């Protein structure tokens, strides 16, 4: 891919949060019956996806995703283009905003996810690895049990895509067009109208006191955790707290260790001197 005209914007890093992972459900007679034509040894239906946080649009920076499934699965290289999704979306009420592959199977394996960026970015594709989970997992039995009861095995991963020193054009794409969710894409009202509209909507939402929505085309992370959206500032704060506590603990341990080492060193020195 030829690099686009223009230079890289030096010293600038832009990030975009997104989520990837798998969701698996075992077949059963009540709510997830085995579809016709699925081999008998398949026990689960699952899907692997790459999507924006809170289902925001990511097509403007992510052009294509290639999922490399296990080789035993027919047609194991699945390539999904943003363009085709958008084409399919036309005329539909509910728009799909994620790169998804639905499959059935019986075994867990590692899925290779290759991300192709917008052609204007001029960046090479990057690879992520994700382990497909079909069976409940977790560090403790309780976690496993919770997953078992949920009926779904969720293995979602939050990740932030960092664009280091993007090209000028891509930089412009990444740093413009933020708008509130639900508002139509810009371009209809022209530039001035867009800016105005943005301000107005911002103000009105302030009045309502609920501008906690993530803006489209921004790097924002939702404030609170909602069902089905486990990644938020709240979760971040929890994690930060946990890490801080752990760090404090480690520091404590280091201090204790330091003390014992010092004591032991003294003991050793005494032993040596007595030997001399």
């Amino acid at each position: 891919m030829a690099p686009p005209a223009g230079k890289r914007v030096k010293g600038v890093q832009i990030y975009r949060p997104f989520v990837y992972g798998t969701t698996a459900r075992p077949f059963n007679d009540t709510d997830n019956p085995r579809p016709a034509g699925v081999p008998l040894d398949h026990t689960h239906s699952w899907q692997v996806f790459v999507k924006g946080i809170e289902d925001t649009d990511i097509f403007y920076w992510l052009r294509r995703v290639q999922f490399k499934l296990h080789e035993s699965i027919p047609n194991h290289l699945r390539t999904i283009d943003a363009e085709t999704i958008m084409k399919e979306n036309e005329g539909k009420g509910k728009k799909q905003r994620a790169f998804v592959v639905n499959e059935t199977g019986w075994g867990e394996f590692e899925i290779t996810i290759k991300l192709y960026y917008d052609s204007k970015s001029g960046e090479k594709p990057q690879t992520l690895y994700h382990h497909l989970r079909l069976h409940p997992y977790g560090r403790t039995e309780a976690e496993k049990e919770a997953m078992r009861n949920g009926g779904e095995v969720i293995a979602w991963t939050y990740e932030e895509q960092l664009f280091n020193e993007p090209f000028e054009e891509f930089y412009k794409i990444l740093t413009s067009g933020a708008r509130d969710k639900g508002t139509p894409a810009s371009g209809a009202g022209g530039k001035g109208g867009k800016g105005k509209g943005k301000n107005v909507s911002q103000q009105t939402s302030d009045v309502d006191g609920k501008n906690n929505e993530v803006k489209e085309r921004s790097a924002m992370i939702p404030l609170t955790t909602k069902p089905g959206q486990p990644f938020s500032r709240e979760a971040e704060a929890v994690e930060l707290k946990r890490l801080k506590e752990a760090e404090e603990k480690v520091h404590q341990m280091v201090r204790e260790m330091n003390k014992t080492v010092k004591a032991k060193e003294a003991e050793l020195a005494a032993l040596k001197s007595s030997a001399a």
Partner: protein
Amino acid sequence: MASHDVRDVLNLPAEGAGFRPAKKQKTAVPRPNLKGLAREVQNLGGDNPIAIVPEISTFKKRRFGSRKPAARWEMRPFHNSARADGSLHLRHWRRRTEGQSGAQSQDGQDAGEDKKETEQKSEELDDSGFAKFNVQVDVPQYSEDQYNSNLTNNDWTKDETDYLFDLARTFDLRWPLIWDRYEYSPKLPGGAGNGEGADTTDPNTAVIPASKVRSMEDLKCRYYEVAAKMMAVQKPVQYMTQAEYALHGIMANFNPNSETQRKKFAQNALNRSKEEAREEESLLIEVRRIVARQERLNQERRELYNRLDYPHTEQDINAFKSSAGLQTLLQNLMSVDKSKKRKPIMEANGNSTPTSAQPPSAHPGSTPTAENSHNRRESIAASTSGSAHRDSIGGGERPERPTKKGAQPPERKKLTEQEEQIYGVSHHDRLSSGPTFRYERINKILTTKSHAQHQRITNTLAELDIPSRLNMPTRSVVEEMEKLLTAIGLLLDMRKMNDKIDAEIRTEQAKKAEREKALAASQAEGGAKAEGESSSQAQGKSGDKGQVNGNKPATNGEPADKAANAKTNGEEPATNGTTDGESDETPDAMNDDEAEQVKEEAGDDRASRPGSSGGQKRSASVLSSVSDKSAKRQKK
């Protein structure tokens, strides 16, 4: 003498008319009569009328002009909602409104007071007009938990912060007042009442913490710090409106040092005398002149350098260093020349663009491909001529690169800080360009370690109940994780050191035990022997030696049953001759048995060294020679 005689003498015309000043004529113009001024006063002005313009006050007689009934006023009770107690009711005069007056003037007078009272109660007491000036300052609140997670500060305890916020609320953020009343005395943890009790219970509390003297800037700094943090806690920066964001920025960036400095400057500026001010002014003018001159000089110098410097190129000019390269360059320039001739409009407005004067290295990047095709050449020619054209506009100085760089930033609009937050833009000093993932950083830390190290780190993380994959690797989380990992690295290092020292201690202890055992045995031996004196001397010697050689404790004397074994080991000391000296030193009078024993001991000492274990493998011939020697010595 009459006057006409004098006139005669002087030969002057007698009684000349007009000579005598005519009698002053009365000014016919009648003076404007000013009312209210005495004639004498007016006459004081003489011909010019005095310049007192009397104010003619025209009071209009509007008495009974409008025959409206007089406005009715009434005493009405009111309360002040700004007061906290709310029970104080005062009365003030209020004009009665029309609707009320109609009804009330009759009712109020006719009916009893109580009725009026109730009516007024029902219509809600008036609020004082001044209540609205009682503005409550919105002082941020924080909970215990929030304080611990966000607001802890080494310099400020929670108590003191609470105290500060209390004062801020009380004095409505009037900083001079807050500062004036600020008298925080830290609470003594162990009951301030009985000092002795505290003394005995806890040595820490024995020292009464001196209350710190806080400047106004300190107070402000703490307040703004907490306020900004609480603001961010309640509403992340990305979600703030413009005004909120600006406020947050101001509070977060409060710098007490610059503030104190500013005040100091202001103080100084106010305190200086007139002379000082004048001097300062003249100095400033002087400085300005110097700076201006310096600038001009610099610019001139820069211009000169520009003239001297050859034009820089960002492209590789190696292609033109060979003669063939020069040839292509020449061809290229010729084609440029031609194309220019063909398109004279291109430089119609450029006054002079002689292509021959065009610096050859200005556009070298386009030349290597020039011979590929005619079309291509055309386009290149156009582009080069285009840029040449731009050059000519640039004028005599050709700041080729500066203009290029200067042209770029306007293309990219500057983002406000808030927009940067929204779009997730951050600035770094060093970046390797290209897309990456946030979590990669942690991954890299883990994977660059050796497998064993990695394993140990994951074990420690599991011990701390931290999942090895971060749930939300945002920037702050990743930074925190890095900190945690370095701390863990430190811990692991400490553990390693601990293990090492443990091992060393163990060996030392083992050695010590062995030594003690040996000591006990030798003492028993020494007690049995009558000639303990000389043997102990020898023991001391061998002990010294042992220490010098292997830093080993002197393990003297093995039990007698090991004597044979010890003798075979004893060859090493014997061969390197150390025992020679010893045996020389031993008194001649010493009998054979004793000498034998000394040798044994010395040999044992060596043998106990791990390094000398090879001595046992010595051949029998050596052994025999040694024994010969020892026999000789014994004969001595």
